[in-house]
């Protein structure tokens, strides 16, 4: 299918158009409709007629108008210049749409993803006469100051290099010519890939997910970590902080490339990313965050069908950088809007609905999408590893997790960060509930945490040596145990009042309050607290649990809880996370607490 063929429109209902007159139309083929050349994709093919979903508003389209099958599927343009860009759901650069149609997006605009006129400096890594196969890196382009773009042979091309040279090229000019059996093929700074098909990697190249993706968010890294190449879901009702959480991860997680898909969400939120990211610095590279970010914005008032495509476009771009050997994190906000787009289109096709009106194939689509995450050995040489981590927000109706999209997402993702409305109402953010969330990767990651933990322990300096718990999993387990116990005690306290409880239980309440306030609660917009290094997380948790052990010892020997509550270091503990002095500050605090507790020991003759 290469030629374009013309048929005619027979029926229009919303974004769905029925056409006829193209005998060899294919599923997934791109069509153009009417005089405005509105773009759509074929989603059903019959003997006489076919159905397409259009990515644009169909107002004014008439039966009898032209419908053209362009002989091509919906593809992503992959190449140099993706980073720092903002695109719509089908990959049109919003910058250039603005130049063409002004502040409002008009219909029928044709704009490419990558600018065609810009030249990039290409440095070859392979030589003339060498054999190059799919995925081989023929050269590089410095796309951003800290990111080298590896120019790869497209997955369907191979041959002997007959021409390659250093120089400045646009994305359309060939940088290398490959020849095989007298047929020529070209490597350019851009390749195309159909968005609904996963990009290939080395055969058998899926790697175990045992390397943590550090996010700088304490509740995630310490309690519910995600590995590079893993999948996570963040379900939560409105106002529980999904978007802020995703923004936090996009800002601070240790990936080299971020693909942020705003799928059916607010325009102002995308604008916020565009305003903030060029100014915020990546803590690792000290470069603006925007330089590692690709934004895909299909806001809630943009056409529904493009919303459905935007998720696949994002993951395809992620896979492309994965294939270059980078760790990519993709955020999708929100996958529920994507599922709703599926539902809407399915409804217009008059398919038999399953639960909640969603099509019966919803779980398949969810699974296919999340399975595109992973850590892999890339196709071609030199050998390299890359990963795509997918983090999807889910917006369950009424905040009730018992609904199709949440249920199916949980089946196919490894980490569950449950956002809790009560926590959000009392402004405890991130509102990730510590008793409802889980990470299936935790056991596997603990091994690798244990290794890095000893590094952290070394870095945390002399002071902590020999004082640290034997391993991180114990520290983590202990904190979770206290949080769990305190939830039970709280439910009793709600009936009897806290004062009716024995002191050891009240200490558990105090300690869990401290863990929540000092550790779990994290200020997204605080200059120090927004990103918390792993070393500091470890030291903070250690300090909090050390305090508990000592206080518990005192309480057992008869010191009243009110006396312990009165020590002036408690408010300081809660504020330690904002302290600029980092680990040193924690050290000082630890010493102060010890002195204060020593005083209590003297008071009660417990020395």
């Amino acid at each position, binding site marked *: 299918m290469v030629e374009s063929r013309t048929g005619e429109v027979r029926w229009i209902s919303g974004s769905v158009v029925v056409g006829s007159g193209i005998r060899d139309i294919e599923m997934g083929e791109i069509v153009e409709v009417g005089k405005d050349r509105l773009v759509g994709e074929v989603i059903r093919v019959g003997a006489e007629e076919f159905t397409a979903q259009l990515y644009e508003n169909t107002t004014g389209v*008439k*039966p009898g108008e032209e419908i053209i099958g362009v002989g091509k599927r919906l593809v992503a343009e992959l190449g140099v210049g993706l980073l720092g860009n903002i695109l719509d759901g089908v990959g049109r650069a919003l910058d250039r749409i603005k130049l063409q149609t002004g502040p409002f997006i008009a219909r029928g605009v044709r704009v490419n993803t990558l600018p065609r006129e810009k030249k990039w400096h290409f440095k070859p890594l392979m030589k003339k006469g060498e054999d190059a196969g799919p995925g081989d890196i023929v050269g590089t382009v410095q796309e951003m100051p800290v990111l080298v773009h590896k120019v790869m042979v497209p997955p369907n091309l191979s041959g002997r290099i007959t021409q390659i040279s250093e120089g400045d090229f646009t994305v359309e000019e060939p940088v290398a010519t490959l020849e095989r059996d007298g047929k020529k093929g070209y490597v350019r700074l851009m390749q195309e890939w159909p968005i609904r098909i996963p990009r290939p990697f080395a055969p058998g190249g899926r790697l175990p997910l045992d390397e943590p993706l550090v996010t700088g968010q304490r509740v995630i890294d310490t309690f519910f970590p995600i590995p590079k190449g893993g999948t996570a879901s963040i379900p939560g009702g*409105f106002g529980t902080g999904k978007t802020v959480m995703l923004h936090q991860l996009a800002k601070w997680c240790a990936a080299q490339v971020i693909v942020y898909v705003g799928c059916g969400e607010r325009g*102002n939120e995308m604008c916020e990313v565009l*305003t903030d990211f060029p100014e915020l610095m990546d803590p690792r590279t000290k470069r603006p965050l925007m330089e590692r970010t690709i934004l895909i914005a299909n806001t809630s008032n943009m056409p529904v069908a493009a919303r459905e495509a935007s998720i696949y476009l994002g993951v395809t771009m992620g896979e492309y950088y994965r294939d270059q050997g980078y760790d990519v994190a993709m955020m999708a906000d929100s996958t529920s809007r994507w599922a709703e787009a599926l539902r809407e289109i399915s409804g217009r096709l008059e398919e038999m609905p399953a639960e909640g009106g969603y099509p019966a194939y919803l779980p398949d689509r969810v699974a296919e999408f999340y399975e595109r995450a992973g850590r892999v050995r890339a196709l071609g040489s030199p050998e390299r590893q890359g990963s795509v981590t997918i983090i999807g927000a889910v917006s369950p109706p009424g905040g009730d997790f018992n609904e199709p999209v949440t249920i199916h997402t949980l089946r196919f993702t490894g980490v569950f960060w449950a956002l809790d409305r009560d926590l959000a109402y009392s402004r405890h953010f991130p509102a990730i509930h510590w008793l409802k969330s889980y990470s299936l990767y935790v056991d596997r990651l603990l091994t690798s945490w244990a290794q890095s933990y000893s590094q952290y322990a070394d870095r945390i300096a002399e002071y902590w040596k020999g004082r640290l718990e034997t391993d991180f999993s114990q520290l983590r387990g202990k904190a979770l145990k206290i949080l769990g116990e305190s939830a039970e005690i709280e439910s009793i306290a709600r009936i009897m009042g806290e004062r009716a409880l024995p002191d050891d239980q009240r200490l558990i309440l105090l300690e869990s309050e401290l863990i929540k*306030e000092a550790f779990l609660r994290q200020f997204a917009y605080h200059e120090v607290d927004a990103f918390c290094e792993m070393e500091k997380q470890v030291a903070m948790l250690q300090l909090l649990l050390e305090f508990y052990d000592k206080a518990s010892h005192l309480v057992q020997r008869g010191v009243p809880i009110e006396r312990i509550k009165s020590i002036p270091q408690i408010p300081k503990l809660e*504020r330690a996370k904002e302290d600029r002095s980092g680990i040193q500050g924690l050290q000082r605090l630890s010493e102060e607490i010890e002195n204060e507790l020593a005083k209590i020991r003297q008071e009660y003759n417990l020395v």
Partner: protein
Amino acid sequence: MESMLSKTHGLVSRGLQEIRGSLVMIDNVENVGYDELVTIRAPDGAERMGRVLEVGRGKAVIQIFGGEMGMQTDSIVSFTGSAFKIPLSDEILGRIFNGIFEPIDGSPPIVSSEQEDINGNPINPRARIYPNNFIQTGVSAIDGMLSLVRGQKLPIFSESGLPHNRLIAQISRQASVLGEKEEFALVFSAMGLRHDEAQYFIDEFRRSGALERSVIILNLADDPAIERLFTPRIALTAAEYIAFKLGMHVLVILSDMTNYAEVLRELSAAREEVPSRKGYPGYLYSDLASIYERAGIIEGLPGSLTQMPILTMPGGDIQHPIPDLSGYITEGQIFLDREMYMKGVYPPINVLPSLSRLMRKGIGKGKTREDHGDVADQLYGAYSRGRQARDLSRIVGEIGLSEDEKLYLKFAERFETQFISQGEYENRTIERTLDIAWELLSILPEKALTRIREEYIAKYYPKTGVKQR
């Protein structure tokens, strides 16, 4: 309606195939576009507007506005050749229209060569400016804890019988941007409101002198329900014109979105679509978004468009599809609470389930006051603990509370009576609001204020305090 007919591109057809509720099937038509506007003249002499919902070769499904009673299959259908457009000029200010933009104030219709499609086009996210101009509403609960900014869409989640109309009238009376003299232009879109409610707003606008910078579009409870689908879009098209062409700052009030969504359900049912929750169509979210997202500030254009939709939650249920989906689209919500209203609190804003997503960048040093963010955060924390203490005291009695809990309980009580409560004509400055907040926070010991930076505590914590234990 004459003006509507004059726009006809000449295509006229006689005879309907079937009339089913507000849907009409028609045969033997050619060259009809999707979403095109039509007028239908029935033998009873009445003219109705309609819109093409589906179209195929030689046949179309038309949704009619203006009531189907009296329609016959022997009707004349004229196709206008375009979607619904309204004429716009600066003459629309000070005018009152019905739900399909026909003047009902006795003055002549608007005549203008500028015509805009009421569906509008989505704003390119790249062309938006992130809203960050604080609007002082003079209402402490909003200014202090749910700050509204220019270009935001912040709905009021209310219930039948709560004073949302009084609150919105107070906001429209008092709203101003700090340091600017310019007053807001108001666009008021009534969807299914009672006559007395609509009259209340008109009287309020007239009394405060806002009427001449207002556009009022009324689709009242006894007006044809189906026209309600147009009303908010007409209002927003007018508002976009006033904001981005005339360069004014516009506050759009949409009341009541629940009535709007119910008509959407009615239509969906008539079309026999697969329903989603509670019979509402699966595209309710996208449809609401096509209304709510028409707010903001645009790079390179003057003016701004701020939206305050009102919706009544059926049965007070925030999880009902209408408030639920709205909450996912809007930039926060102001939640009115029946229990608080019963206790005599006006405005009965429960701040805990309320939220303003754009607050953070609109407040702080140089905008409101440096301590604003921390204070709001602390108020949330303390009030939420106070409410927990109140729940507990209902079980164990106040006597069973710990000292801490008693303090928080006292804080919560005074927070409701002194901070949230205020007069309907009381216009508090943001400084006054924050000062009241500090007064109340001084009920708590300094060290309990863990959400406020120490430097601000040193500067603002009342030294003498009002600690009446």
